[in-house]
């Protein structure tokens, strides 16, 4: 039970780096491919996921002793659905333009495997404080990955960062095309694997 020995800071950092939901665990790929066309999209969806993850983790952690093991998955799903409804209504009311740009994906957070997995693996066993930091780390890890993808695609596709013209020209328009998401994610994953391979080789030497 290595998880139990970890401190709060470690839990937090793990979510962002070594257990990054998109690059390392390869979960919730749909938004990573679908709407990572700009950094702003990544920040917004990342915030939504962070909110849902932290709130559901805390909720489940609080009631973890009262959930019958047989109905635990439906309980998780309904908890997540409730928090998704909250963030969905809030975004639709206060940020209608950004909400439109993200389309169905805000409401589809409910089907993200990463959140259910964290509830099952972590929040249903650990106390409130630890679950909070775990949720925070996972949510920020997701946000970080979405922002990296958005950064690459926005910079290479339209030469801009967060809407500001950085390069002054458009290197490869291909990257803002929706289907380029597959290539970017694939190449990034390959890149992360390659780093790992090189790192291991150095260690052996």
């Amino acid at each position, binding site marked *: 039970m290595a998880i139990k020995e970890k401190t709060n800071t470690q839990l937090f950092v793990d979510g962002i780096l070594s257990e990054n939901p998109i690059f390392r665990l390869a979960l919730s790929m749909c938004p990573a491919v679908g709407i990572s066309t700009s950094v702003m999209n990544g920040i917004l969806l990342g915030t939504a996921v962070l909110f849902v993850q932290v709130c559901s983790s805390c909720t489940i952690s609080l009631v973890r002793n009262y959930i019958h093991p047989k109905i635990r998955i439906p309980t998780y799903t309904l908890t997540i659905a*409730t928090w998704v409804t909250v963030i969905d209504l809030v975004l639709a009311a206060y940020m209608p333009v950004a909400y439109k740009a993200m389309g169905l994906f805000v409401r*589809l957070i*409910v089907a993200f*495997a990463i959140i259910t997995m964290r509830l099952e693996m972590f929040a249903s066993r650990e106390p409130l404080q630890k679950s909070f930091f775990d949720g925070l780390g996972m949510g920020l890890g997701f946000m970080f990955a979405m922002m990296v993808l958005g950064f690459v695609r926005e910079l290479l596709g339209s030469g801009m960062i967060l809407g500001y013209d950085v390069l002054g020209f458009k290197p490869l328009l291909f990257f803002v095309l929706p*289907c380029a998401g*597959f290539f970017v994610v*694939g190449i990034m994953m390959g890149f992360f*694997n390659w780093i790992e391979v090189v790192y291991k080789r150095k260690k052996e030497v």
Partner: protein
Amino acid sequence: MKSIRSYHLLVGVLLIAALFLTGCETGHKFVKKTGFKDTDKIVITFAGPVDEAWASNVANFSAYEKPDPDIVLTVKEIVLSSDKTKLTLIFEAPLNTGEAHILNIKNIMSEGQDMGAAMLTVKKLYFGVLMTILIGAALINNFVFTKYLGLCVFFGCSQKRSTAIGMGIVFTVVIAFAATMAWALYQFVLKPYQLTFLNIVVFIGLVSLSVQGVDTILRKVNPILFKAFGVYLVLVIANCIAIAVPLMLADNEYTGWESFSLALGAGIGFLIALFMMACVREKLELAKVPPSFKGLPIAFVVAGLFALAFLGFSGLSIY
């Protein structure tokens, strides 16, 4: 036993007939049929020959789209067939054939007799609309390659062709069942009681319930089939298409049949995507892939190539 079977057959035939007939009724005794032809023509078929002088007068005809009665569409030319029963109105601008059109005709003259004015509704066959939705969901807006949904299950189940087919079939069945239920629940419960803000909670519960329902029914009715396909049932819940379809049909206010064809199209599109991907990945096993790209990364690149190819469907329109 036989009577039950023929009764079912009769109901089926009636249902199909109803689907076909909805586009053809005209509301005037002298007009037999109306319909679109190409993008800028409306064809009217009369029960008998009409007078040429009456038919060639453009002022006798006026048309507009049903939602916008104040925008009158201008008729450029009228062509009468040689037996004088078929009239083709050619319009100046292309028509939006997805919308129903209202066509007003002034006193129809047939062999010197006045047959009265007619107000006709011209629309596509309902069956055509359904087919458009189905093919749209399966190819043009394929959920995997152009909407980027359900990727977790898509990459998880596309290693082997047999797995791909099993998952695709199970998913199609469950989603068709769940979407029809979601439509009924949305139209008859959520909307009348103004509970639409509960969409997400209700739909995810409904999808889980239908998965459980199909699981229980299959286990009892056909244990052999359950052994083959049971494993995939759990994965259906993890697929975001399963929750996206109910949300979409609620957003677009689809009717029952339209919801069903959307779900069917989504399922078939998912099946096609899975199968094609599995075929490629089986071959990839033998290919020399750089070690850091083995497995998921190269699968993503392949999916990107498929997505590029699917862009080609974007101009497709059949009905």
